[in-house]
């Protein structure tokens, strides 16, 4: 089977400092990969390199495009990369405000990606927007409200709907549950888990919350100081951590 995403020796430096280095992995269709680590460990740098927001200094990120098979997204032209960014890829930001247009209604936010790939029928766009708002548990009567009128959890769900409406194959998530209270987090995770399974999405989730990866991720990568220090199946890594840092990380979780 061809991997959906093939990452080879990615490295990003900020001057002399290491952002992340020597990261390699394959992600297969339908697989969810978690990246955990403490703040400043290079998780977000890595994610931004993979999603094309940052240009890595070394390495290759090959994505299995629909027409031409595996292609290096770092060396492909910017229009092609941006096209991927609004069709086959999705990026869920930690702060919903970074991923939403706050002065455009919820329906417009969801419809934007459709219109970006040349949907030109208002009725169809609206129907799709209503459908997707429903899937993320936002009722139809809120479609013309602006995200500013939404709660934090709703904004995050709206961001997810906006990203998934074009049926992407790979979703990048940067701390999707950060800043939400625990009951809202639980619902959001439940929703995400459902959508990932239902649409057979592949996802890369960056988080420092081990509960999130326990619920969502098939595989886990633990990062520290820009290096990957441990990889494996999620349960394996969390239940039987080998590296000293992973052991520290796992034992730091509060038990209620």
């Amino acid at each position, binding site marked *: 089977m061809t991997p959906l995403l093939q990452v080879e020796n990615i490295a990003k430096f900020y001057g002399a400092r290491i952002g992340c280095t020597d990261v390699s992995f394959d992600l297969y269709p339908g697989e969810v990969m978690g990246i955990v680590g403490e703040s400043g460990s290079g998780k977000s740098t890595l994610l931004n390199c993979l999603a094309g927001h940052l240009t890595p200094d070394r390495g290759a990120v090959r994505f299995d495009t629909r027409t031409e098979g595996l292609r290096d997204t770092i060396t492909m032209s*910017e*229009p092609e990369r*941006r096209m991927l960014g*609004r069709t086959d890829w999705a990026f869920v930001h930690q702060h919903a405000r970074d991923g939403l*247009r706050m*002065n*455009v*209604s919820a*329906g*417009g936010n969801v*419809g*934007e*990606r*459709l*219109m*970006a*790939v*040349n949907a*030109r*029928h*208002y*009725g169809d*766009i*609206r129907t799709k927007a209503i459908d997707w708002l429903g899937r993320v548990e936002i009722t139809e009567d809120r*479609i*013309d409200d602006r995200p500013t009128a939404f709660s934090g959890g709703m904004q995050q769900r709206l961001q997810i709907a906006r990203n998934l409406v074009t049926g992407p194959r790979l979703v990048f998530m940067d701390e999707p549950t950060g800043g939400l209270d625990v009951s809202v987090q639980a619902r959001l995770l439940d929703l995400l888990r459902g959508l990932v399974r239902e649409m057979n999405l592949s996802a890369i989730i960056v988080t420092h919350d081990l509960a999130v990866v326990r619920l969502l991720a098939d595989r886990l990568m633990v990062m520290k100081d820009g290096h990957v220090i441990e990889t494996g199946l999620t349960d394996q890594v969390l239940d039987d951590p080998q590296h000293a840092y992973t052991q520290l990380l796992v034992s730091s979780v509060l038990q209620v």
Partner: protein
Amino acid sequence: MSDYNFAYLDEQTKRMIRRAILKGLAIPGYQVPFASREMPMPYGWGTGGVQVSAAVLTPEDTFKVIDQGADDTTNAVSIRRFFQKTAGIAVTEATSQASVIQTRHRIPEEELSADQILVYQVPIPEPLRFLEPSEVETRKMHALEEYGLMHVKLYEDISQHGDIATAYAYPVKVEGRYVMDPSPIPKFDNPKLEMAGIQLFGAGREQRIYAIPPYTQVVSLDFDDYPFHPSKADHACDLCGATDSYLDELIVDDAGGRMFMCSDTDYCTTRRKQGHIGAQGVPYHEDAA
């Protein structure tokens, strides 16, 4: 006349502006940056249009200025006088006799010919500006032809008002490539953007010039199920009886009295001279105006 260089600007400046105009004509709808000069009038009064006019005027030209269709408003009168003073050129109010027409917010009703130039005053040249505040990002969107966002604005219109409520500065796609703001002309005028004359757009504060060459395809953006519709007040002109011109609505007393009249004053006067009379009109007299 020896006090000023011809048409106020110095020759080097005019060359710089002409280069921008030529580039604009070569890439229809593309916003060309230019080094906009300080003009003896405030931004928002047509500094961009005035600079473009100054660059294209020749001593043989006949100049006309309209503001919202009218030849006799402050803005039109002062710009016309400015060029009379600094260029000593002939001026006119008749659309057909002018070789260069500077306009604010209207296209003349009378069809322009191939030997005429229409200069627009533009406040915000970037059609995507109100949705995407970053200039870096909007330039990239133009470069990569990512115009989905423009439809988001039209979507918002329909979802809020039930129809595309944008009535002026209605976005257009020029020659199948660049999305362009036609300056705040009513969308009634959009179909006229495909014309025989040269159209130049100048934005002084924003330092941009763009252009539409003659006979260029200009398509107003819309949705399949909400097609573009050039609208006007459903009335005839009360002065000249014209049913095909864009109308201004005037409140004439405090008892709800109102009248509709052509916004293009030259068009209206010409028709009245020809003997057309509207519902509230009186026969034309030379000295009545």
